[in-house]
Protein backbone atom coordinates (compact mmCIF):
# COMPACT_ATOMS: atom_id res chain seq x y z
CA UNK A 1 0.00 0.00 0.00
CA UNK A 2 2.98 2.28 0.30
CA UNK A 3 2.58 5.38 -1.78
CA UNK A 4 5.39 7.81 -1.95
CA UNK A 5 4.17 9.36 -5.15
CA UNK A 6 7.28 11.40 -5.70
CA UNK A 7 10.72 10.37 -6.68
CA UNK A 8 13.71 12.47 -5.84
CA UNK A 9 15.32 13.55 -9.01
CA UNK A 10 19.03 13.32 -8.59
CA UNK A 11 19.90 15.37 -11.65
CA UNK A 12 22.85 17.57 -10.91
CA UNK A 13 21.20 20.94 -10.75
CA UNK A 14 24.53 22.43 -9.90
CA UNK A 15 25.53 21.96 -13.51
CA UNK A 16 23.07 24.64 -14.44
CA UNK A 17 24.76 27.24 -12.33
CA UNK A 18 23.32 28.93 -9.30
CA UNK A 19 20.42 30.59 -11.03
CA UNK A 20 19.53 27.58 -13.12
CA UNK A 21 19.91 25.32 -10.13
CA UNK A 22 17.53 27.47 -8.17
CA UNK A 23 14.93 27.29 -10.89
CA UNK A 24 15.31 23.56 -11.01
CA UNK A 25 15.05 23.43 -7.25
CA UNK A 26 11.84 25.37 -7.37
CA UNK A 27 10.37 23.07 -9.98
CA UNK A 28 11.44 20.08 -7.96
CA UNK A 29 10.01 21.49 -4.80
CA UNK A 30 6.75 22.51 -6.48
CA UNK A 31 6.28 19.06 -7.85
CA UNK A 32 7.10 17.43 -4.57
CA UNK A 33 4.85 19.75 -2.65
CA UNK A 34 1.89 19.34 -4.94
CA UNK A 35 2.20 15.58 -5.01
CA UNK A 36 2.68 14.97 -1.33
CA UNK A 37 1.20 17.75 0.79
CA UNK A 38 -2.28 16.41 1.29
CA UNK A 39 -1.11 12.85 1.68
CA UNK A 40 1.22 13.80 4.50
CA UNK A 41 -1.50 15.89 6.11
CA UNK A 42 -3.75 12.86 6.15
CA UNK A 43 -1.00 10.76 7.73
CA UNK A 44 -0.26 13.33 10.42
CA UNK A 45 -3.97 13.68 11.01
CA UNK A 46 -4.22 9.94 11.59
CA UNK A 47 -1.31 10.18 14.02
CA UNK A 48 -2.56 13.17 15.96
CA UNK A 49 -6.32 13.29 15.47
CA UNK A 50 -6.31 17.02 14.74
CA UNK A 51 -6.68 17.97 11.11
CA UNK A 52 -6.19 21.70 11.54
CA UNK A 53 -2.98 21.21 13.44
CA UNK A 54 -1.86 18.59 10.96
CA UNK A 55 -2.30 21.04 8.09
CA UNK A 56 -0.41 23.74 9.91
CA UNK A 57 2.46 21.55 11.02
CA UNK A 58 2.86 20.02 7.57
CA UNK A 59 2.92 23.46 5.99
CA UNK A 60 5.55 24.52 8.47
CA UNK A 61 7.55 21.40 7.67
CA UNK A 62 7.46 22.26 3.97
CA UNK A 63 8.62 25.77 4.77
CA UNK A 64 11.57 24.29 6.63
CA UNK A 65 12.23 21.91 3.79
CA UNK A 66 12.24 24.78 1.32
CA UNK A 67 14.86 26.56 3.40
CA UNK A 68 17.21 23.61 3.01
CA UNK A 69 15.84 22.01 -0.09
CA UNK A 70 19.26 21.43 -1.56
CA UNK A 71 19.90 19.06 1.35
CA UNK A 72 16.45 17.63 1.79
CA UNK A 73 16.04 16.74 -1.86
CA UNK A 74 19.09 14.56 -1.65
CA UNK A 75 17.78 12.54 1.24
CA UNK A 76 16.62 9.11 0.35
CA UNK A 77 13.03 9.90 1.17
CA UNK A 78 12.25 13.59 1.58
CA UNK A 79 8.64 12.71 2.25
CA UNK A 80 9.74 10.87 5.36
CA UNK A 81 11.72 13.94 6.40
CA UNK A 82 8.64 16.12 6.01
CA UNK A 83 6.50 13.63 7.88
CA UNK A 84 8.98 13.39 10.75
CA UNK A 85 9.36 17.14 11.10
CA UNK A 86 5.61 17.68 10.83
CA UNK A 87 4.91 15.05 13.46
CA UNK A 88 7.40 16.57 15.85
CA UNK A 89 5.91 19.98 15.26
CA UNK A 90 2.41 18.72 15.80
CA UNK A 91 3.25 17.27 19.19
CA UNK A 92 5.37 20.20 20.29
CA UNK A 93 4.29 21.41 23.67
CA UNK A 94 4.83 25.00 22.72
CA UNK A 95 2.65 24.75 19.65
CA UNK A 96 0.02 22.95 21.64
CA UNK A 97 0.07 25.70 24.20
CA UNK A 98 -0.26 28.36 21.55
CA UNK A 99 -3.02 26.49 19.81
CA UNK A 100 -4.81 25.90 23.07
CA UNK A 101 -4.74 29.58 23.75
CA UNK A 102 -6.01 30.33 20.30
CA UNK A 103 -8.80 27.86 20.85
CA UNK A 104 -9.88 29.78 23.92
CA UNK A 105 -10.43 32.76 21.73
CA UNK A 106 -12.38 31.01 19.06
CA UNK A 107 -16.07 31.14 19.50
CA UNK A 108 -16.60 27.66 18.26
CA UNK A 109 -14.42 24.99 16.86
CA UNK A 110 -15.10 23.96 13.31
CA UNK A 111 -16.17 20.36 13.04
CA UNK A 112 -13.52 18.09 11.63
CA UNK A 113 -14.14 15.82 8.69
CA UNK A 114 -17.87 16.36 8.34
CA UNK A 115 -19.78 13.43 7.01
CA UNK A 116 -17.67 10.70 8.53
CA UNK A 117 -19.35 7.35 8.65
CA UNK A 118 -20.04 5.70 12.01
CA UNK A 119 -17.23 3.28 11.29
CA UNK A 120 -14.86 6.15 10.68
CA UNK A 121 -15.91 7.81 13.88
CA UNK A 122 -15.40 4.57 15.73
CA UNK A 123 -11.95 4.27 14.23
CA UNK A 124 -11.02 7.84 15.16
CA UNK A 125 -12.25 7.23 18.67
CA UNK A 126 -10.27 4.02 18.88
CA UNK A 127 -7.07 5.65 17.66
CA UNK A 128 -7.41 8.33 20.28
CA UNK A 129 -7.39 5.70 22.99
CA UNK A 130 -3.94 4.37 22.28
CA UNK A 131 -0.68 6.09 23.12
CA UNK A 132 0.89 8.51 20.64
CA UNK A 133 3.83 6.18 20.04
CA UNK A 134 1.53 3.26 19.38
CA UNK A 135 -0.64 5.37 17.11
CA UNK A 136 2.34 6.61 15.16
CA UNK A 137 3.61 3.08 14.67
CA UNK A 138 0.16 1.83 13.68
CA UNK A 139 -0.29 4.60 11.15
CA UNK A 140 3.18 4.24 9.67
CA UNK A 141 2.66 0.52 9.33
CA UNK A 142 -0.96 0.22 8.28
CA UNK A 143 -1.48 3.49 6.41
CA UNK A 144 1.89 4.58 5.12
CA UNK A 145 2.93 1.00 4.55
CA UNK A 146 6.39 1.17 6.05
CA UNK A 147 8.19 -1.93 7.20
CA UNK A 148 9.27 -2.40 10.78
CA UNK A 149 12.81 -1.41 9.87
CA UNK A 150 11.62 1.70 8.08
CA UNK A 151 9.45 2.71 11.02
CA UNK A 152 12.40 2.18 13.33
CA UNK A 153 14.53 4.40 11.12
CA UNK A 154 11.90 7.11 10.92
CA UNK A 155 11.02 7.18 14.59
CA UNK A 156 14.49 6.54 15.94
CA UNK A 157 13.21 3.65 18.03
CA UNK A 158 14.69 0.16 18.03
CA UNK A 159 12.82 -2.37 15.92
CA UNK A 160 11.80 -4.28 19.03
CA UNK A 161 10.21 -1.17 20.41
CA UNK A 162 8.33 -0.62 17.17
CA UNK A 163 7.01 -4.17 17.28
CA UNK A 164 6.00 -3.64 20.87
CA UNK A 165 4.15 -0.46 19.97
CA UNK A 166 2.36 -2.24 17.17
CA UNK A 167 1.42 -5.21 19.29
CA UNK A 168 0.27 -3.16 22.22
CA UNK A 169 -1.55 -0.77 19.98
CA UNK A 170 -3.41 -3.60 18.36
CA UNK A 171 -4.28 -5.12 21.68
CA UNK A 172 -5.63 -1.79 22.83
CA UNK A 173 -7.61 -1.47 19.62
CA UNK A 174 -8.89 -5.03 19.73
CA UNK A 175 -12.14 -4.25 21.57
CA UNK A 176 -12.99 -1.70 18.92
CA UNK A 177 -11.45 -3.14 15.80
CA UNK A 178 -12.72 -6.60 15.07
CA UNK A 179 -9.75 -7.37 12.87
CA UNK A 180 -7.48 -7.18 15.90
CA UNK A 181 -9.69 -9.23 18.16
CA UNK A 182 -7.40 -12.21 17.98
CA UNK A 183 -4.43 -10.12 18.90
CA UNK A 184 -6.30 -8.78 21.86
CA UNK A 185 -7.25 -12.26 22.90
CA UNK A 186 -3.64 -13.27 23.12
CA UNK A 187 -2.88 -14.31 19.58
CA UNK A 188 0.31 -12.45 18.81
CA UNK A 189 0.16 -13.16 15.12
CA UNK A 190 -0.13 -10.13 12.98
CA UNK A 191 -3.18 -9.88 10.78
CA UNK A 192 -1.31 -8.80 7.68
CA UNK A 193 -0.01 -12.10 6.52
CA UNK A 194 1.89 -10.68 3.60
CA UNK A 195 4.44 -9.11 5.94
CA UNK A 196 4.51 -11.86 8.49
CA UNK A 197 8.21 -12.44 8.13
CA UNK A 198 9.04 -9.08 9.57
CA UNK A 199 7.57 -9.73 12.98
Amino acid at each position, binding site marked *: MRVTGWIVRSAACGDLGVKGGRVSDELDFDEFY*TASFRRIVSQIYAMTGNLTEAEDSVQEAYARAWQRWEDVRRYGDPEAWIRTVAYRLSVSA*WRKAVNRRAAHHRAAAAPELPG*LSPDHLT*LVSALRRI*SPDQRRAIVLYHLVGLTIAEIAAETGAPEGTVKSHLNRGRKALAPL*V*SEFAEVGAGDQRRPRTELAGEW
Partner: protein
Amino acid sequence: MRTVPESFDSMLAELADAAVSITPLPDLADVRRRARQRTNRRRAFASALALILIGGSAGTVAAVTHKVAPASSVGTMSSVAASASPSPSASPPSTETAVAGGVTGAASKAYEPLVGLWELKDGTQRYLIVYSDGLLGIGEAGGWAMCFGQVSAPSAGTYPLAGVACSDYGTTGLSLAPNADDSMLTLSVPARGSVAGYSEAFVRAPDMTAVAIDEKNSQVLGTWMSASADKRMLVITGDGMMTWSGLDDTGAVTGGTGMMEGLYYGGVRYYVECGDKADPYKVCGLFQVVPVGVGKIIVYGSYGPETFIRVSAAQGSAASSSATSSTATTSSSSPTASASAASTSAALFPSFGGSMS
Protein backbone atom coordinates in the same frame (compact mmCIF):
# COMPACT_ATOMS: atom_id res chain seq x y z
CA MET B 1 -19.58 -1.99 22.03
CA ARG B 2 -19.35 -1.03 18.40
CA THR B 3 -16.41 -2.45 16.51
CA VAL B 4 -14.86 -1.66 13.16
CA PRO B 5 -15.93 -4.58 10.99
CA GLU B 6 -13.89 -4.00 7.87
CA SER B 7 -10.22 -4.33 7.16
CA PHE B 8 -8.37 -1.98 9.42
CA ASP B 9 -6.03 -1.00 6.62
CA SER B 10 -8.95 -0.11 4.39
CA MET B 11 -10.70 1.83 7.09
CA LEU B 12 -7.56 3.76 7.87
CA ALA B 13 -6.98 4.47 4.19
CA GLU B 14 -10.56 5.69 3.80
CA LEU B 15 -10.17 7.93 6.79
CA ALA B 16 -7.00 9.37 5.29
CA ASP B 17 -8.74 9.80 1.95
CA ALA B 18 -11.52 11.68 3.67
CA ALA B 19 -8.93 13.99 5.18
CA VAL B 20 -7.25 14.45 1.82
CA SER B 21 -10.53 15.28 0.16
CA ILE B 22 -11.25 18.21 2.43
CA THR B 23 -7.69 19.44 2.83
CA PRO B 24 -6.97 22.44 0.62
CA LEU B 25 -3.59 22.71 -0.99
CA PRO B 26 -2.13 25.96 0.33
CA ASP B 27 -0.58 28.26 -2.21
CA LEU B 28 3.09 27.54 -2.62
CA ALA B 29 3.76 31.23 -2.27
CA ASP B 30 2.48 30.99 1.29
CA VAL B 31 4.91 28.19 2.05
CA ARG B 32 7.81 30.15 0.63
CA ARG B 33 6.71 33.28 2.47
CA ARG B 34 6.67 31.26 5.65
CA ALA B 35 10.15 30.00 4.89
CA ARG B 36 11.39 33.54 4.25
CA GLN B 37 9.93 34.68 7.54
CA ARG B 38 11.77 31.89 9.29
CA THR B 39 14.98 32.85 7.52
CA ASN B 40 14.54 36.49 8.47
CA ARG B 41 13.91 35.57 12.08
CA ARG B 42 17.02 33.47 12.18
CA ARG B 43 19.05 36.23 10.60
CA ALA B 44 17.71 38.70 13.10
CA PHE B 45 18.70 36.41 15.90
CA ALA B 46 22.09 35.82 14.45
CA SER B 47 22.53 39.58 14.29
CA ALA B 48 21.34 40.00 17.84
CA LEU B 49 23.65 37.29 19.04
CA ALA B 50 26.57 38.79 17.14
CA LEU B 51 25.78 42.14 18.71
CA ILE B 52 25.78 40.61 22.13
CA LEU B 53 28.95 38.70 21.52
CA ILE B 54 30.80 41.68 20.10
CA GLY B 55 29.53 43.99 22.79
CA GLY B 56 30.15 41.47 25.50
CA SER B 57 33.81 41.16 24.66
CA ALA B 58 34.38 44.87 25.06
CA GLY B 59 33.86 45.32 28.72
CA THR B 60 32.29 44.39 31.99
CA VAL B 61 28.62 44.57 32.66
CA ALA B 62 27.99 46.92 35.50
CA ALA B 63 24.59 47.98 34.47
CA VAL B 64 22.19 45.91 36.40
CA THR B 65 21.44 47.21 39.80
CA HIS B 66 20.52 44.16 41.74
CA LYS B 67 20.45 40.45 41.77
CA VAL B 68 18.40 38.33 44.07
CA ALA B 69 20.07 34.99 43.94
CA PRO B 70 22.40 33.31 43.97
CA ALA B 71 24.95 35.35 45.80
CA SER B 72 27.85 34.11 43.79
CA SER B 73 28.36 32.53 40.45
CA VAL B 74 31.55 30.63 40.39
CA GLY B 75 30.70 28.40 37.47
CA THR B 76 32.06 28.90 34.04
CA MET B 77 30.42 29.28 30.70
CA SER B 78 30.99 26.99 27.84
CA SER B 79 29.66 27.08 24.37
CA VAL B 80 26.83 24.84 23.43
CA ALA B 81 28.95 23.16 20.87
CA ALA B 82 31.47 22.28 23.52
CA SER B 83 28.93 20.57 25.73
CA ALA B 84 28.27 16.92 25.54
CA SER B 85 25.80 16.43 22.75
CA PRO B 86 22.94 14.11 23.48
CA SER B 87 22.50 11.05 21.42
CA PRO B 88 19.38 10.80 19.31
CA SER B 89 17.77 8.94 22.13
CA ALA B 90 18.55 11.85 24.36
CA SER B 91 16.14 14.06 22.52
CA PRO B 92 13.44 15.53 24.67
CA PRO B 93 10.15 13.72 24.78
CA SER B 94 8.09 14.39 21.75
CA THR B 95 4.95 12.53 22.52
CA GLU B 96 1.67 14.09 23.44
CA THR B 97 1.70 12.20 26.67
CA ALA B 98 5.07 13.48 27.61
CA VAL B 99 4.46 17.10 26.93
CA ALA B 100 0.88 17.42 27.93
CA GLY B 101 1.44 17.18 31.63
CA GLY B 102 3.01 20.53 32.18
CA VAL B 103 0.79 22.34 29.80
CA THR B 104 -2.54 21.07 30.84
CA GLY B 105 -1.84 20.25 34.40
CA ALA B 106 -2.40 16.57 33.87
CA ALA B 107 0.93 15.78 35.44
CA SER B 108 2.01 12.22 35.37
CA LYS B 109 1.66 10.60 38.74
CA ALA B 110 4.73 8.55 37.99
CA TYR B 111 7.10 11.45 38.62
CA GLU B 112 5.17 13.12 41.40
CA PRO B 113 7.68 12.42 44.20
CA LEU B 114 10.43 14.04 42.16
CA VAL B 115 8.69 17.03 40.66
CA GLY B 116 10.03 20.41 41.72
CA LEU B 117 13.19 22.38 42.18
CA TRP B 118 16.00 20.84 44.21
CA GLU B 119 19.33 22.09 45.50
CA LEU B 120 22.33 20.23 46.84
CA LYS B 121 21.96 19.52 50.51
CA ASP B 122 25.56 20.38 51.32
CA GLY B 123 25.09 23.94 50.17
CA THR B 124 27.11 23.59 47.03
CA GLN B 125 25.54 25.65 44.32
CA ARG B 126 23.99 23.00 42.16
CA TYR B 127 20.36 22.67 41.25
CA LEU B 128 18.14 20.03 39.78
CA ILE B 129 14.67 20.48 38.36
CA VAL B 130 12.16 17.76 37.55
CA TYR B 131 9.13 18.61 35.43
CA SER B 132 5.74 17.03 35.58
CA ASP B 133 6.36 15.34 32.22
CA GLY B 134 9.47 13.65 33.58
CA LEU B 135 11.99 15.88 31.87
CA LEU B 136 14.93 16.67 34.07
CA GLY B 137 17.38 19.56 34.18
CA ILE B 138 20.63 19.32 36.13
CA GLY B 139 23.05 22.13 36.66
CA GLU B 140 26.61 21.34 35.77
CA ALA B 141 29.89 23.15 35.99
CA GLY B 142 31.07 24.72 32.80
CA GLY B 143 27.74 25.59 31.27
CA TRP B 144 24.97 28.01 31.97
CA ALA B 145 22.20 25.95 30.44
CA MET B 146 21.12 23.00 32.52
CA CYS B 147 21.88 19.68 30.96
CA PHE B 148 18.84 17.50 30.62
CA GLY B 149 17.60 13.98 30.84
CA GLN B 150 14.39 12.04 31.08
CA VAL B 151 13.18 10.30 34.20
CA SER B 152 12.12 6.74 33.54
CA ALA B 153 9.48 4.72 35.33
CA PRO B 154 10.51 3.77 38.86
CA SER B 155 11.81 0.40 39.80
CA ALA B 156 11.92 -0.49 43.47
CA GLY B 157 11.72 3.15 44.44
CA THR B 158 14.52 4.21 42.12
CA TYR B 159 13.99 6.29 38.99
CA PRO B 160 16.56 5.57 36.26
CA LEU B 161 17.49 8.50 34.07
CA ALA B 162 17.59 8.17 30.33
CA GLY B 163 18.90 10.42 27.60
CA VAL B 164 21.13 12.30 29.99
CA ALA B 165 23.40 14.81 28.26
CA CYS B 166 25.57 15.90 31.17
CA SER B 167 29.31 16.06 30.78
CA ASP B 168 29.71 16.21 34.56
CA TYR B 169 27.75 13.09 35.29
CA GLY B 170 28.19 11.02 32.19
CA THR B 171 25.27 9.84 30.19
CA THR B 172 24.30 6.43 31.45
CA GLY B 173 23.52 4.64 34.65
CA LEU B 174 22.25 7.62 36.61
CA SER B 175 19.23 7.35 38.85
CA LEU B 176 17.20 9.32 41.34
CA ALA B 177 15.68 8.01 44.54
CA PRO B 178 13.39 10.06 46.79
CA ASN B 179 13.33 9.43 50.52
CA ALA B 180 10.21 8.32 52.36
CA ASP B 181 8.57 11.73 52.60
CA ASP B 182 9.87 13.01 49.25
CA SER B 183 11.84 15.75 50.97
CA MET B 184 15.20 14.55 49.77
CA LEU B 185 16.43 13.18 46.50
CA THR B 186 19.53 11.09 46.01
CA LEU B 187 21.24 11.24 42.66
CA SER B 188 23.36 8.15 42.10
CA VAL B 189 26.20 8.54 39.64
CA PRO B 190 27.89 5.36 38.45
CA ALA B 191 31.64 4.90 38.24
CA ARG B 192 33.23 6.27 35.09
CA GLY B 193 36.73 5.23 34.18
CA SER B 194 38.94 6.02 37.10
CA VAL B 195 36.24 7.98 38.88
CA ALA B 196 34.41 5.95 41.49
CA GLY B 197 30.65 6.03 41.66
CA TYR B 198 29.11 8.43 44.13
CA SER B 199 25.82 9.97 45.15
CA GLU B 200 24.58 13.47 45.81
CA ALA B 201 21.73 14.46 48.11
CA PHE B 202 19.33 17.18 47.02
CA VAL B 203 16.72 18.89 49.15
CA ARG B 204 13.78 20.93 48.00
CA ALA B 205 14.67 24.51 47.13
CA PRO B 206 12.59 27.40 48.46
CA ASP B 207 9.34 28.16 46.75
CA MET B 208 8.80 31.33 44.85
CA THR B 209 5.82 33.06 43.40
CA ALA B 210 5.50 33.67 39.72
CA VAL B 211 3.29 36.30 38.21
CA ALA B 212 0.75 35.19 35.65
CA ILE B 213 1.80 35.30 32.05
CA ASP B 214 -0.44 36.94 29.51
CA GLU B 215 -1.28 35.43 26.17
CA LYS B 216 1.66 36.99 24.38
CA ASN B 217 4.12 35.96 27.07
CA SER B 218 4.91 39.66 27.48
CA GLN B 219 6.33 39.08 30.91
CA VAL B 220 9.29 37.14 29.57
CA LEU B 221 9.91 39.03 26.35
CA GLY B 222 12.72 41.52 25.99
CA THR B 223 16.41 41.97 26.62
CA TRP B 224 17.45 40.74 30.03
CA MET B 225 20.62 41.17 32.03
CA SER B 226 21.83 39.79 35.29
CA ALA B 227 24.21 41.49 37.68
CA SER B 228 26.55 38.58 37.28
CA ALA B 229 30.16 39.39 36.66
CA ASP B 230 29.91 36.92 33.83
CA LYS B 231 27.68 39.29 31.91
CA ARG B 232 24.88 36.85 31.38
CA MET B 233 22.27 38.17 29.04
CA LEU B 234 19.14 36.90 27.35
CA VAL B 235 17.15 38.20 24.44
CA ILE B 236 13.69 36.64 24.22
CA THR B 237 11.33 37.46 21.40
CA GLY B 238 7.69 36.88 20.71
CA ASP B 239 8.27 34.15 18.18
CA GLY B 240 9.51 31.90 20.95
CA MET B 241 13.20 32.22 20.35
CA MET B 242 15.90 33.05 22.85
CA THR B 243 19.50 34.14 22.46
CA TRP B 244 21.74 33.81 25.45
CA SER B 245 25.31 34.75 26.13
CA GLY B 246 27.82 35.09 28.91
CA LEU B 247 31.50 34.89 29.72
CA ASP B 248 33.40 31.72 30.34
CA ASP B 249 36.21 31.48 32.86
CA THR B 250 38.70 32.67 30.28
CA GLY B 251 36.71 35.80 29.63
CA ALA B 252 35.56 34.64 26.24
CA VAL B 253 31.95 35.23 25.33
CA THR B 254 29.91 32.18 24.61
CA GLY B 255 26.27 31.72 23.90
CA GLY B 256 23.64 30.08 21.84
CA THR B 257 20.02 30.06 20.90
CA GLY B 258 17.00 28.37 22.34
CA MET B 259 13.38 27.80 21.57
CA MET B 260 10.40 28.22 23.83
CA GLU B 261 9.13 24.71 24.34
CA GLY B 262 6.41 24.61 26.91
CA LEU B 263 4.70 26.33 29.78
CA TYR B 264 5.60 24.93 33.14
CA TYR B 265 6.11 26.01 36.65
CA GLY B 266 4.41 29.35 36.11
CA GLY B 267 6.99 30.11 33.48
CA VAL B 268 8.47 28.89 30.27
CA ARG B 269 10.82 26.04 29.52
CA TYR B 270 13.36 26.75 26.81
CA TYR B 271 15.31 24.14 24.96
CA VAL B 272 18.83 25.09 23.99
CA GLU B 273 19.18 23.95 20.42
CA CYS B 274 22.21 22.55 18.68
CA GLY B 275 20.51 20.93 15.72
CA ASP B 276 22.37 19.67 12.73
CA LYS B 277 21.46 18.09 9.45
CA ALA B 278 20.98 14.67 10.94
CA ASP B 279 18.81 15.91 13.75
CA PRO B 280 17.51 19.44 13.25
CA TYR B 281 15.91 19.33 16.68
CA LYS B 282 18.86 18.20 18.72
CA VAL B 283 18.71 19.72 22.17
CA CYS B 284 21.70 20.37 24.38
CA GLY B 285 20.13 21.76 27.50
CA LEU B 286 17.36 23.81 28.97
CA PHE B 287 16.50 26.97 30.83
CA GLN B 288 13.47 27.63 32.96
CA VAL B 289 12.34 31.25 32.82
CA VAL B 290 9.85 32.42 35.40
CA PRO B 291 8.44 35.96 35.52
CA VAL B 292 8.38 37.24 39.08
CA GLY B 293 7.43 40.87 38.65
CA VAL B 294 7.32 43.75 36.24
CA GLY B 295 10.55 43.71 34.30
CA LYS B 296 11.99 40.90 36.35
CA ILE B 297 12.45 37.21 35.66
CA ILE B 298 14.16 34.36 37.41
CA VAL B 299 16.21 32.16 35.13
CA TYR B 300 17.01 28.65 36.27
CA GLY B 301 20.24 27.46 34.78
CA SER B 302 23.31 25.76 36.07
CA TYR B 303 23.96 28.67 38.42
CA GLY B 304 20.63 28.14 40.07
CA PRO B 305 17.85 30.71 40.19
CA GLU B 306 19.19 34.04 39.04
CA THR B 307 17.33 37.30 38.69
CA PHE B 308 17.40 39.18 35.42
CA ILE B 309 16.23 42.71 34.86
CA ARG B 310 14.70 43.85 31.62
CA VAL B 311 16.65 46.53 29.82
CA SER B 312 16.03 48.13 26.48
CA ALA B 313 17.87 46.63 23.56
CA ALA B 314 20.00 49.76 23.38
CA GLN B 315 20.75 49.58 27.08
CA GLY B 316 21.71 45.97 26.76
CA SER B 317 24.06 46.71 23.94
CA ALA B 318 25.56 49.72 25.65
CA ALA B 319 25.94 47.99 28.97
CA SER B 320 27.71 45.04 27.48
CA SER B 321 30.05 47.19 25.48
CA SER B 322 30.97 49.70 28.12
CA ALA B 323 32.96 48.97 31.19
CA THR B 324 32.06 52.32 32.61
CA SER B 325 28.34 52.08 32.33
CA SER B 326 26.69 52.74 35.59
CA THR B 327 23.22 52.07 36.79
CA ALA B 328 20.74 50.82 34.29
CA THR B 329 17.06 51.20 34.69
CA THR B 330 14.46 48.73 33.78
CA SER B 331 12.79 49.36 30.51
CA SER B 332 9.96 51.81 30.62
CA SER B 333 8.35 49.82 27.91
CA SER B 334 7.86 46.84 30.11
CA PRO B 335 4.64 45.24 29.11
CA THR B 336 2.04 44.96 31.76
CA ALA B 337 -0.40 42.15 31.68
CA SER B 338 -4.01 43.03 31.68
CA ALA B 339 -6.01 41.68 34.55
CA SER B 340 -8.21 39.67 32.29
CA ALA B 341 -5.32 38.17 30.42
CA ALA B 342 -3.58 37.36 33.64
CA SER B 343 -6.58 35.62 35.05
CA THR B 344 -7.00 33.60 31.89
CA SER B 345 -3.36 32.75 31.97
CA ALA B 346 -3.46 31.69 35.58
CA ALA B 347 -6.02 29.10 34.67
CA LEU B 348 -3.94 27.86 31.79
CA PHE B 349 -0.66 27.53 33.60
CA PRO B 350 -0.70 24.88 36.25
CA SER B 351 1.59 25.00 39.19
CA PHE B 352 4.74 23.02 38.97
CA GLY B 353 4.52 20.14 41.32
CA GLY B 354 1.98 21.98 43.37
CA SER B 355 4.47 23.70 45.61
CA MET B 356 5.38 26.53 43.32
CA SER B 357 3.04 28.41 41.10
